[in-house]
């Protein structure tokens, strides 16, 4: 009989090696590329930090990076804040948990591209919302602040990420033993107090998980800013895409990808540290 350890390793190896290889090799090559340069179609393989110098001094890069982080932060806050009451509702206020969980996940399985596109149709100058409001005589001119700005990006992504926020928070709420809340009441806490001193701290892991799973991919989102962001809502991913597309400067694209990734990583780590310390300080 082979040992448990070797069986476990053998069975899990294909999956973890596959992911490991497809993370480390592309990133390794990305790092190498970032030190090369490209003019039109020919790649110059002499090592140089010129891309980094260019990327880090270019005010546009810095501006897009800061905006990406800002928008991703707004998206994360908006999504989690909108989702928390729903998760709470499903965990504590309804008997039909499975139905509700299914209801909130179904829209997620429709094409992401089309959902974002749909928001563009809703928020547009001649779009669904404006035409509906006009025909109801609620406004007499189309609203222009709806589309092609940061707000549109935040709204669209808060919609797109909904299940990713609801599910982890729901899971952490579900784990709370109801007798803990009864104990809090018994010890004289009002419902609001027991929410802030028992429920909320116990769901910090769920909130952190939801935030990371939303924040990280959002910084690198490309479709939403391209469709509903306009020039005001463009993000770093759009600039990266341009380097691999129209501008045809892969080394610079690689450099920007790495800078974006490191920035996201640092912000994420900072967030986890802050959130867990904050969670611990509640008494």
């Amino acid at each position: 009989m082979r040992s448990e350890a070797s069986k476990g390793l053998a069975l899990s190896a294909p999956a973890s090696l596959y992911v490991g290889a497809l993370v480390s090799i592309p990133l390794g090559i990305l790092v190498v590329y970032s030190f090369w340069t490209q003019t039109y179609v020919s790649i110059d393989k002499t090592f140089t930090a010129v891309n980094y110098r260019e990327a880090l001094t270019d005010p546009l890069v810095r501006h897009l990076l800061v905006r990406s982080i800002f928008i991703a932060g707004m998206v994360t806050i908006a999504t989690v804040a909108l989702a928390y009451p729903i998760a709470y509702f499903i965990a504590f206020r309804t008997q039909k948990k499975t139905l509700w969980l299914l209801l909130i996940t179904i829209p997620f399985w429709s094409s992401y591209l089309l959902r974002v596109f749909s928001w563009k149709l809703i928020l547009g100058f001649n779009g669904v919302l404006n035409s509906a409001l006009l025909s109801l005589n609620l406004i007499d001119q189309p609203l222009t602040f709806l589309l092609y700005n940061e707000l549109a990006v935040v709204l669209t992504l808060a919609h797109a990420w909904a299940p990713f926020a609801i599910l982890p928070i729901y899971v952490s709420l579900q784990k709370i033993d109801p007798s803990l809340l009864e104990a809090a009441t018994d010890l004289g806490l009002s419902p609001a107090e027991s929410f802030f001193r028992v429920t909320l701290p116990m769901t910090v892991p769920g909130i952190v998980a939801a935030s990371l799973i939303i924040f990280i991919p959002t910084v690198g989102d490309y479709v939403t800013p391209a469709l509903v962001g306009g020039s005001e809502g463009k993000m770093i991913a759009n600039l990266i895409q341009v380097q691999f597309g129209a501008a045809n400067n892969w080394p610079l694209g690689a450099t920007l990808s790495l800078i974006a990734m490191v920035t996201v990583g640092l912000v994420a780590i900072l967030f986890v540290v802050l959130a867990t310390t904050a969670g611990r300080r509640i008494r």
Partner: protein
Amino acid sequence: MTRFRRYLPGLPAYAFAYLVFLYTPVLLLPVFSFNDGTIVAFPLKGLTLKWYAQLGAQETLIRALFNSLIVGGIAALASTSLGLFAARAYVRYRFPAKEMSEGLVMLPLVIPGIIVASSMLIMFVSIGLKPSLTAVILGHTFLALPFAVSIMKSAFDEFDQSLEEAAYDLGETIIGTFRRVTLPIVSPGIIASLLVTFTVSFDEFVLAFFLSGNQPTLPVYIWSQIRFPAKLPNTLALGSILLLASILLLVVAEYFRRRTSKTSI
């Protein structure tokens, strides 16, 4: 629990409002796909099916659909197989670096899409693999793996380990035990995983956009159509069909996922 029902009486209303928020953009596509006009705005102009009828004649669409089916099918099979074995290891065995491995396979969920896409593009080009469906399949298998692993993990979680021991005890071989006991019992989980990973691949855009080269998948095709206002109603019709297909797949997957938990009693 009933004690807390009293507080926040607005919560159910909020929940319904949230559902409206979730479903409006999704249901908008089918509504306007029947609209007899090219502008998506109220008031609706009348019912028509012509946008649907025109779809069949578009050869590039059919080819893109075919590409997506191939990519989705293979990526679903590959990620589910990898996920099946890995999940079994995670649920059943203790081994060195298990937690690291479990974390690693979830990584594709949290790497920004643009970074996965750009780095894979560079890698495939460096090793001489031109952007193609093969590249997309490899990438989608990577992206779908976390879904396959978590579905298969819950399938194995519900699976009583002594069932395999019983089969082995009754003289069955290890492979025979897997075929006669493990597979039939976790098969609803496998089907659920295949359906979900297929859907993940079928809807994926960014990676396919970078890696598909001149063999566009359906989302890449849709992206190319979105830019042309004249094609808009066709795109809406196509989107509605995809929506319906996705929901059907999901309902079937959910049915099989629930079968997993039922058989474990």
